[in-house]
């Protein structure tokens, strides 16, 4: 999972609390839950929290942690207090998300074809040319339906002004959706009465929507397309999710060695001989997809895949080269993309962003390091960023040097104060920061399930919600 951050130390009254308003009164959409919480004996809650841990372990919902002894599997801590979003608010959010992803897909098509947006002067040419994620191999290639980012995960946070902001777009191989589904299953299993008492919109049809999306982007002529999910294998941190989704969709979970290319066509090796593959939902990065085209040392990929793909013999979801659009240095231009391609005003806020390759921005940022968050444009997982307000002078000096060495690699943003949701800490509730990742599916249609993955920073005051750095998860309810 990639990062999301921001900061502000002591919980101040200006922070937005999803459950309570400024006077510490329960907000209307949390009424039903809070009433339930007050009436439910605390030992039942403690017992069920323990049961949740056991169940997650038994089902094997674990993730591997890089850098720890190989094969280490850990649970992501699950908190039973949901992140509740009122239905009408969700409608606004989902319209904004669809709009954004639609524009990003149009941008990707444009950038690998006429580059009209560059010609129109809306995005500087070097921003595209010098972008390491720009894949020359994709120039002029037509993908089915013009869809590049079939699965997009957009990270949102709510600032102290009560507004949602997009923190980043994940258009490569966004993960986490299995936790969204399992968290819901767990809540319904442990506390069914909560779902009987109020209307919470269901999310469990996500695999159906995903399958529909993938079927919708098969090449013409494949009326019963063979779809597979390509995984790096069971040492990958998201392997559980790959297996889970493949199973839910009833498609084969394949590794690179299960596939081969002959006559520019992709086949899988089966007990009945080779079988043609039409759509690959790949959870492997571009660099590892095809050792002939990208990293020659990749053991995960399929030699010849790129050539079959370019010839239009197989569909990849997501497409190759989507990274150019979710790169942090491209992020500031997304509102412009929406205006340019859709002729609409963006419905979701972007966080103001400084590009450090710009001399004026750079001068400002170096002056204000202590107030800003500085990140690597290519970074993910919350690694390698500077959170100004909590940094030491020494850290800032070291970072300043890194910026001066390669300014184009960095961006900076004001520190956002993530909203908070009460969360169990031991046996008591404490306010903890959250973010939200809804998923947008684009095939012949654009679709979403109402909800997403809520990540919570379990350490008090912390704004780092990444699972690799001690973050937990919550169920996300869109309640009517």
């Amino acid at each position, binding site marked *: 999972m990639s990062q999301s951050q921001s900061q502000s130390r002591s919980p101040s009254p200006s922070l937005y609390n999803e459950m309570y308003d400024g006077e510490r009164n329960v907000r209307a959409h949390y009424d039903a839950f809070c009433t339930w919480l007050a009436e439910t004996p605390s030992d039942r809650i403690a017992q069920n929290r323990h049961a949740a841990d056991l169940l997650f372990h038994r089902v094997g919902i674990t993730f591997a942690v890089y850098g720890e002894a190989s094969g280490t599997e850990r649970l992501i801590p699950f908190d039973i207090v949901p992140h509740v979003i009122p239905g009408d608010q969700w409608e606004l959010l989902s319209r904004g998300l669809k709009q954004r992803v639609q524009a990003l897909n149009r941008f990707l098509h444009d950038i690998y074809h006429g580059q009209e947006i560059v010609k129109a002067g809306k995005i500087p040419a070097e921003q595209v040319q010098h972008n390491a994620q720009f894949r020359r191999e994709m120039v002029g290639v037509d993908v089915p339906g013009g869809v590049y980012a079939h699965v997009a995960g957009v990270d949102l946070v709510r600032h102290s002004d009560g507004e949602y902001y997009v923190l980043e777009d994940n258009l490569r191989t966004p993960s986490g959706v299995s936790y969204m589904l399992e968290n819901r299953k767990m809540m319904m299993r442990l506390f069914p009465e909560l779902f009987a008492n109020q209307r919470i919109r269901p999310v469990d049809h996500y695999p159906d929507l995903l399958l529909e999306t993938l079927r919708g982007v098969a090449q013409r002529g494949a009326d019963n397309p063979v779809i597979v999910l390509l995984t790096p294998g069971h040492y990958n941190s998201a392997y559980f999710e790959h297996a889970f989704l493949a199973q839910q969709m009833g498609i*084969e979970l394949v590794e690179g060695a299960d596939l081969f290319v002959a006559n520019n066509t992709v086949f899988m090796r089966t007990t009945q001989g080779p079988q043609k593959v039409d759509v690959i939902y790949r959870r492997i990065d571009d660099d590892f997809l095809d050792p002939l085209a990208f990293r020659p040392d990749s053991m995960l990929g399929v030699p010849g895949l790129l050539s079959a793909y370019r010839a239009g013999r197989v569909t990849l979801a997501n497409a190759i080269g989507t990274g150019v659009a979710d790169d942090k240095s491209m992020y500031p231009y997304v509102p412009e993309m929406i205006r340019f391609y859709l002729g609409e005003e963006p419905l979701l806020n972007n966080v103001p962003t400084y590009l450090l390759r710009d001399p004026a921005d750079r001068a400002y940022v170096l002056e204000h390091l202590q107030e800003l968050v500085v990140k690597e444009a290519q970074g993910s997982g919350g690694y390698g960023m500077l959170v100004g307000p909590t940094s030491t002078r020494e850290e800032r000096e070291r970072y300043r040097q890194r910026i001066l060495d390669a300014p184009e690699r960095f961006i900076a943003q004001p520190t956002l104060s993530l909203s908070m949701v009460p969360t169990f800490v031991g046996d008591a509730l404490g306010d903890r920061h959250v973010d939200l990742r809804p998923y947008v599916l684009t095939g012949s249609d654009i679709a979403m399930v109402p909800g997403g993955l809520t990540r919570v920073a379990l350490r008090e005051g912390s704004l780092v919600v990444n699972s690799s750095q001690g973050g937990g998860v919550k169920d996300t309810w869109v309640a009517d």
Partner: protein
Amino acid sequence: MLSRVASNLYWMSRYVERAENTARVLDVAWRMSLLAKEPRLQDQEWFAPLNITGTLFPFSGRHNIVCAREVLHFMALDPENPSSIYTCARQARENARSVRGSITSEMWEVLNATWLEMQQMDEEKMESRGISAFFDWVKERSHLFRGVTFGTMHRDDAYEFTRLGTHMERADSTARILDVKYHILLPSVKDVGGAVDYYQWSAVLRSVAAFEAYRKVYRDVITPLKLAELLILRDDIPRSLRFCLRQVHDTLGHVQNAQSGETLRRAGQMLSQLQYGRISEIFSAGLHEYLTDFLDSSQQLSTQIQRSFFASAVVE
């Protein structure tokens, strides 16, 4: 289905079956060791589990003497022993983990929970819980896995390869268990037909859960000839060689492909020898020789299965 997945399923169920059979063999050895006997025979039966599973060699490389505690630990809990129950539980779970998309979540949960519990196990816990209780647990987990497989799995090729693994492993293990009498030599001729002999033969029966079946079928005292007939030639005993080979042959018929003709032929040949064989002929040629041949053929069949179905896959 994917060759790699077929291979993982086949080995997943082989490992589950192997864990169960090891538990059965150890359980019997354990019970026999509790019977009163001459001191010089003490620990004698602890050679049997090692012989049966073909692990005497690796064991003696690391231990000087064969005694109950050592063998139990080596066969049940030793992570270094490639055929210990511990290792089988791990391998079954690892194989399942790489094919989670092709088995039901119930199957996965059984194997995963078994492995989690297995990791908590040590000698002390095994003894405090009771040695036999531990073996019962292993058998129960295996029963549960088979039951869940039977009760939840879609009847497609994945099911067939899972079943194939179970019956290939079971045939192999029944043949090895039967051969045990060759390995536990009776101290002297006068013991033949005596109490020790009786206990040893009934132990063999119990280890394959066929004691009650024997009584029902023969209504007679246990004799080697009848016992061998029961476990080799009967078609209605779920652990007999004939029963297992019929399942293997059926399964291979269901999943056959362009290259699997020879595999099916070999299985058919083994099956017809069992269908039309006579126990008196087997005994006059020598039971041990017969079983050695059978184990060879079964090994060749397994190689043949690998070649015709999993060839292009990475074998775990």
